[in-house]
């Protein structure tokens, strides 16, 4: 029954990577992946909430009555999301302006509640910590990859700290479809397809 600890961490990076394997939490995946910077910012915010809520839920799992567990999880998750929101406003205001409404919406991201309910409420603190960290990093990497593809084809450059780094050179005609909403769906579909092809045995 007890899996090796390392596996709790690494499963989040490939076997159960949220947007591609579990196909959960797609709202931010589609909405904020216009640029790599936004994607990574959103990923880090979600990772923080995931790790903190997983640890706290797992610590309190014996004290929380099962009938009100969802309410308790939501209170815990919402608290950490508000913490992230305040800290981001104080220290990374431009990023906060870009991510806007999607930061408070982490509360209803089903990955976070899903991990609390399916994992942290049944496992020890350290395991839950590793699980949250693994899933969070997997989520961040997926956002970064999707955002990189969209930004690269949509603008021909990757932007870091307000500095665009041109990749395709000046003769490239930006394929702006990719940074619009339909491009997000097409891109996600193609990446899902590739992930399934690679993972097929």
């Amino acid at each position: 029954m007890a899996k090796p600890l390392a596996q709790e961490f690494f499963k989040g990076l490939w076997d159960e990577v949220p947007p591609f394997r579990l196909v959960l939490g797609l709202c931010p995946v589609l909405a904020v992946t216009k640029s790599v910077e936004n994607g990574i910012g959103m990923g880090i915010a979600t990772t923080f909430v995931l790790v903190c809520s997983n640890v706290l839920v797992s610590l309190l799992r014996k004290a929380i009555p099962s009938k009100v567990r969802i309410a308790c999880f939501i209170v815990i998750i919402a608290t950490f999301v508000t913490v992230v929101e305040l800290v981001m406003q104080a220290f990374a205001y431009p990023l906060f302006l870009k991510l806007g409404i999607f930061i408070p919406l982490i509360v209803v991201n089903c990955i976070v509640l899903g991990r609390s309910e399916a994992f942290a409420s049944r496992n020890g603190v350290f395991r839950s910590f590793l699980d949250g960290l693994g899933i969070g990093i997997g989520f961040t990497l997926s956002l970064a990859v999707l955002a990189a593809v969209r930004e690269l084809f949509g603008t021909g450059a990757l932007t870091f700290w307000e500095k665009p780094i041109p990749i395709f050179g000046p003769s490239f005609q930006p394929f702006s479809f990719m940074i619009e909403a339909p491009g997000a769906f097409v891109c996600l579909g193609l990446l899902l397809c590739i992930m399934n092809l690679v993972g097929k045995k």
Partner: protein
Amino acid sequence: MREMIKMVVVLTILSCFSGGLLAYIHSGTKERIENQVLEFVKGPAIRMIFEGATNDPIVDRFQIKDGDIERTFFVGVFDGEPRGIAFETSGKGYGGDVGLMVGIDVKENKLLGVGVTTHAETPGMGAKAQTDPNFAAQFRDISLEDPINVNQDGGNINAISGATITSRAVCAATNEANDIYKEFKDQLDDQLKSFKK
């Protein structure tokens, strides 16, 4: 019965801790967030108006009570003399209120410049009030003797084509700023006199 009491107790304790933690973080970050909002929302307009100022106008600010609201005034120092003030007013635009930062030279009673801070105007049309430097340039160094109006209303400001309502809103906000300036002129002069150079 026991189970119900336990549910209530657990939820209450959890919510109390959550509230306490958030209140603590809120009070810890409040000042920084205010500064960030000033820097990124109002900062660009203020810096454009006070081009060439030798101080940081966002740090050098003071407040004056106007009835129930507190108005924030930003100070611009030119050639070692605090002679510029800037504050925010608003006018009715096409898509809602247009927030306008208005800079006034208190020594010569003239307009230093204006800059749009917040708006909900149509992109490519009214939104040009914020992004088109030619429009804002018309408000540089003009006298405050006469009310400021767009061409259509007999004034000297060329309205943004296709966005007369937005242009009128900017003019109205400037005129309102002029009224506020006249009302508070004595207090502003006192504040600037005691301003540390």
